[in-house]
């Protein structure tokens, strides 16, 4: 008998008290919890919660965005930046002196470690929790590029990419895609429960709320 049959057989015997004709739907799950905790202004709440978890929040119009990104890279003295294949050309138009490293499958982790910054879009941002969700779309790239470099700039289109709550966020996402939920920069509370930002992921997370 295979281990699979052994385990499934044990499960079935353990559930001898469950009537054979019972279906999962007959075990009631009341979903009377709120779909959203109804923030007055989701974009404002997103900004507030992002900042509360030590992300740096900026705002820009489409016209201001290239200058802002160039300024953020310069402030960090970034000499190289990872670029997802589908990132709009214009976003990096003003970042003249910065070497662009394309997101490629062949790049080794060591090569990624030598890059200073990364710029991406996002799939969904959740206001109530201050969370950015990346789904590896063309303007976000592979999961690892937002992990290895120490500085991540994430552009969120407001209001269209912003949802209020976790339930609303999940409904917008496709489970089959690799998903990364980011709430503030990397952090740990392992030493006496003191929160320290930045252990392994980017120590600096900058979020640009792009309007218009």
């Amino acid at each position: 008998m295979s281990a699979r049959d052994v385990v499934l057989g044990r499960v079935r015997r353990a559930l001898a008290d469950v009537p054979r004709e019972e279906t999962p739907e007959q075990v009631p799950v009341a979903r009377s919890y709120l779909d959203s905790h109804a923030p007055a202004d989701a974009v404002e709440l997103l900004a507030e919660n992002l900042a509360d978890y030590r992300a740096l929040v900026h705002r820009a119009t489409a016209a201001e965005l290239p200058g802002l990104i160039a300024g953020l890279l310069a402030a960090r003295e970034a000499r190289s930046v990872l670029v997802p294949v589908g990132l709009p050309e214009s976003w990096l138009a003003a970042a003249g002196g910065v070497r662009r490293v394309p997101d490629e499958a062949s790049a080794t982790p060591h090569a990624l470690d030598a890059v200073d910054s990364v710029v991406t879009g996002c799939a969904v941002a959740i206001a109530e929790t201050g969370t950015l969700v990346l789904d590896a779309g063309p303007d976000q790239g592979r999961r690892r590029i937002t992990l290895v470099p120490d500085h991540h700039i994430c552009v969120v289109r407001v209001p269209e990419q912003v949802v209020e709550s976790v339930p609303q966020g999940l409904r917008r996402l496709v489970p089959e895609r690799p998903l990364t939920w980011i709430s503030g920069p990397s952090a740990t509370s392992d030493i006496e429960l003191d929160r320290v930002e930045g252990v392994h992921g980017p120590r600096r997370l900058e979020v640009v709320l792009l309007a218009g």
Partner: protein
Amino acid sequence: MSGTYLGMPAFPTAAASATRDGQLRANLTHATHTIRDKRARAVAELPDWALLREAGAAIKDRTLRHLDGYLERLEAAVTAAGGQVHWAEDAEAANRIVTDLVLATGEREVVKVKSMATQEIGLNAALERAGVRAYETDLAELIVQLGDDLPSHILVPAIHRNRTEIRDIFRERMAEWGRAAPEGLSDRPADLAEAARLHLRQKFLDAKVAVSGANFMVAETGTMVVVESEGNGRMCLTLPETLISVVGIEKVVPSWRDLEVFLQLLPRSSTAERMNPYTSMWTGTTDDDGPRAFHLVLLDNGRTDTLADTVGRQALRCIRCSACLNVCPVYERAGGHAYGSAYPGPIGAILTPQLRGVGSELDASLPYASSLCGACYEVCPVAIDIPEVLVHLRERVVEGGEVTRNGRRVRIRPARGHAAERAAMRAARWTLDHPGVLRAGQRLAGRMRGLQPRRLPGPGRAWTASRDLPPLPAEPFREWWRRTRGEQREAGR
């Protein structure tokens, strides 16, 4: 401590020595009180918390009552997405499967994401016997590994260590495992985290194989979910070529939508945050993004035995948030090591004796590692009635009876040490039913209190082994009452 729980003393013995460790108690009191208060604030932000909790419990109950179907569905979905599913009936089988998978890659090192399941089965030691070195990458697990120590908390495994102890461990041990600690390392948490970053980065960048657990597995889609803070999880889950996840069969949830409940319940209950910094979700493998090979090892190891107990089954709802540890007066004083298991605290006191049976003295003692105050039930985000299960398990320890072990129904005998307790309770009942005898005894005891021992001899020994006998008052309560209140009443007349 040598990284194994075998041969651990029973809870009362381990707790008696832990409670005398002033440093440990200070570390624990500080940590548990900090997180307790923060958690209460995080939960208070959601007015529908009680409804979320109810839904969380109900989803888990639905899953458990139909676990076979959900596991089959999960297996099909993971396989369709390019993953490979393995089944392990016990720890030994799981360790063998993982070891074989690692050896097949030709690698001799693996990086690990913090995982209770691999801690439970002793995977690191099993890998070591096969010549494979496992590196823990969670900061707290790293501290525990470097210190040749055992985890003492579900969420914060090194909660029993303070910053100075951690600095000393880093200074003394890091060089043996890889990059040494920086010169003149201070005990500031930021500096310690930086030392860990430098130490582990080389391992992440070079790793070809990673081992993880998972917080949730979605049957409907085959999606795996890992919730973390530091980014070490993301490193392990995305950089290596091969990923092996060892996950208890109870971690499955039916549908994608169910995550909306647990992703609200878990972060606020565990780290007291609105959301933890990183959550990774993956379904099988993805071309050119992340590991090329994904293996899921579904672990039983006593879970089906637990499932067979209709009262104890609810322990399998646990989402490992550790809120129950942080509110427990017994955990706060005894510390996590006293529980002799990967699962300490109130949840450990009901989970461990069910996963392992109550055959050993340690496991038989765990249902008694509680004051039954009920705080653990109050905070549990999936409403596990821990006191109810504790009482149920105590009954089993004392009375014996029919249980399922390794899938078979067996009858266990009452634990020997508890016969004395039964006799003592009968004696107490008789004394309380005869107030005259009680009064005489108390007067006598009051006069002889200079002779009072700290430990009782005879049948009372078991009781005082884990408690200091309280000093006897000079005057029994009923005497005091009669003297003071009696006089007052007369004066009032």
